[in-house]
């Protein structure tokens, strides 16, 4: 077994893990999901999902990562195999390699928009809208048509206009994307300690400082349009608990609404990067007696601090101050990108020094994206180093070539990144998490994993979480998975609506099939490589 790298400092490791978890989801997806699901009504199942599902799963992933790393495996195929001797285990673990590798392909492209927008904002090149157009009582349609339309057109031009099955992308968009990719590769080539850890130590404090500065600016806006609109009203919308939510014209009790549970649990999952295979990879660089209990808790709390405290105080209150709570809700329901790239630049455009504030907003998103990009890229590098035996430099070159070439599917094909996000970013994580928790708590053994979790631990985890992880978390995940598959895959088949719109939510066309075939090819290819690696090992033994 070759010598594996290790984290230099504990704070560096925790900040890198927090950087892994804190991403665009904290500042864009969370307010969007909360707004679509009744604000305060959403927060109740969100907090319950965090305690019953996310916190135990975070500890399990840290423990599995350290356990695998001690045996020379930085990725889930090897980790699964070392915890379960059945030959199928390593193929189930391929999911933990497939998911981050696909996510990094499209996430880099999306992440590059943030810095591109930041540059445009700093150079005062974003659209301008006259502040006097705004008045209280504007309908969401009026706001979209009069105020936000130029920003939406700008976004379409930046991210690519659809021409048939292709996207026509600006040269600037492409150059910025390649620059972000090269920057990420450079950081990865420097290694775990010199590259990823150093980035986290600089980027994470900077991210928190910028985010807090923006929150202060938003909450000192007062009533910029009329006395009816204020950031506090948006804040109240998010925090005033509501026990009933409207679904199909009926008032439904929040705790009995499956849709809100699905959305809340999905958000908790996505935001903490659980079921991605990336947390285990970072934890695999721990020493065998190093604490995972306090570190896992620190990762979860840092991410939640960035999400519920900071993320909840940015986009929705800012939009409420200028457009009112009702319109902010409609804006947020049109998607995370509409909120982050269309409405927030408009809001900052109305303010003095708006260019600089807009830049800070996009730079904050860029820092969040960059730390997640390197985390998602690390598992493939670890796999190439640990299982195939190439050097880090060679691994980065292989990853770089694959990453650069496959990203073109997202840049130039209509629906490319949405198809990847559907399978790798939405369906994959709960599936992998379900497999992980069953493997660790039921196959490997709950008592063994509990003991492993407490080796070197500086805090004692309450026994409550043992029972939660053993019974509630798998049940919770199983229900989420089945409901999700029924709603998103089975129901469209039953309704027969797939000829117009693909299950991935984009217009059907050959580009969708090209991306699906690409994903299938990558998954099968990874399974085949795992097969060859283990066959080679058997022959050597």
């Amino acid at each position, binding site marked *: 077994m070759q010598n594996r790298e290790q984290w230099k400092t*504990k704070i560096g490791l925790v900040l890198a893990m927090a950087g892994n978890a804190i991403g665009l989801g904290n500042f864009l997806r969370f307010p969007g999901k909360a707004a679509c699901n009744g604000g305060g009504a959403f*927060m109740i199942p969100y907090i319950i999902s965090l305690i019953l599902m996310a916190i135990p799963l975070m500890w399990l992933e840290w423990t599995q990562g350290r356990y695998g790393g001690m045996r020379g495996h930085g990725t889930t195929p090897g980790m699964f195999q070392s915890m379960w001797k059945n030959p199928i285990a390593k193929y189930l673990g391929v999911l933990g390699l497939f998911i981050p590798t696909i996510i990094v392909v499209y996430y880099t492209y999306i992440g590059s928009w943030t810095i591109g927008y930041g540059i445009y904002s700093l150079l005062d090149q974003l659209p301008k809208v006259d502040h006097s157009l705004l008045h209280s009582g504007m309908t969401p349609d009026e706001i979209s048509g009069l105020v936000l339309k130029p920003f939406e057109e700008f976004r379409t031009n930046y991210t690519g206009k659809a021409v048939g099955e292709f996207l026509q992308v600006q040269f600037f968009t492409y150059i910025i994307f390649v620059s972000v990719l090269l920057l990420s590769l450079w950081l990865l080539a420097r290694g775990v300690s010199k590259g990823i850890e150093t980035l986290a130590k600089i980027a994470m404090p900077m991210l928190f400082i910028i985010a807090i500065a923006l929150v202060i600016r938003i909450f000192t806006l007062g009533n910029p349009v009329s006395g009816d609109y*204020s950031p506090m*009203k948006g804040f*109240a919308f998010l925090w005033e608990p509501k026990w009933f939510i409207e679904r199909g014209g009926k008032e439904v009790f929040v705790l009995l609404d499956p849709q809100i549970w699905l959305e809340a649990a999905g958000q908790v999952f996505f935001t903490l990067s659980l079921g991605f295979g990336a947390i285990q990879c970072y934890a695999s660089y721990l*020493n065998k007696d190093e604490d995972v209990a306090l570190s896992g808790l620190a990762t979860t709390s840092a991410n*939640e601090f960035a999400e519920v405290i900071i993320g909840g105080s940015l986009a929705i209150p800012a939009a409420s101050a200028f457009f009112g709570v009702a319109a902010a809700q409609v804006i947020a329901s049109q998607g995370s990108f509409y909120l982050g790239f269309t409405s927030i630049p408009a809001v900052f455009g109305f303010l003095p020094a708006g260019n600089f504030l807009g830049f800070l907003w996009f730079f904050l998103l860029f820092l969040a994206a960059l730390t997640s990009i390197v985390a998602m890229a690390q598992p493939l590098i670890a796999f190439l180093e640990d299982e195939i035996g190439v050097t880090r430099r060679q691994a980065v070159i292989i990853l770089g070539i694959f990453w650069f070439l496959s990203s073109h599917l997202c840049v130039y094909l209509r629906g490319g990144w949405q198809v990847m996000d559907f399978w790798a970013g939405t369906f994959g994580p709960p599936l992998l998490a379900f497999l992980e928790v069953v493997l660790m708590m039921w196959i490997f053994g709950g008592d063994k994993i509990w003991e492993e979790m407490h080796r070197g631990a500086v805090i004692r985890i309450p026994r409550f979480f043992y029972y939660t992880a053993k019974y509630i978390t798998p049940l919770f995940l199983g229900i989420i998975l089945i409901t999700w598959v029924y709603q998103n895959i089975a129901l469209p088949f039953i309704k027969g609506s797939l000829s117009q719109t693909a299950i991935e939510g984009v217009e059907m066309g050959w580009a969708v099939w090209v991306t699906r075939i690409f994903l299938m090819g990558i998954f099968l290819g990874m399974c085949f490589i795992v097969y060859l690696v283990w066959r080679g090992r058997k022959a050597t033994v």
Partner: protein
Amino acid sequence: MERKEGDSMNWQGWIFMLMVWGFVGSLFFYSFYRIIFDNKVKDKKEDKKMC
């Protein structure tokens, strides 16, 4: 602009927000305080270096 009545959050909102912020915030500050300042945590790393 004139500030209107009802601009602020109701008391249930404040209580709910303070509970969640308190829970997340205390976990955050407790865990980072231990990691940065707690000698027990630091010593474990230093012990390993000595070995």
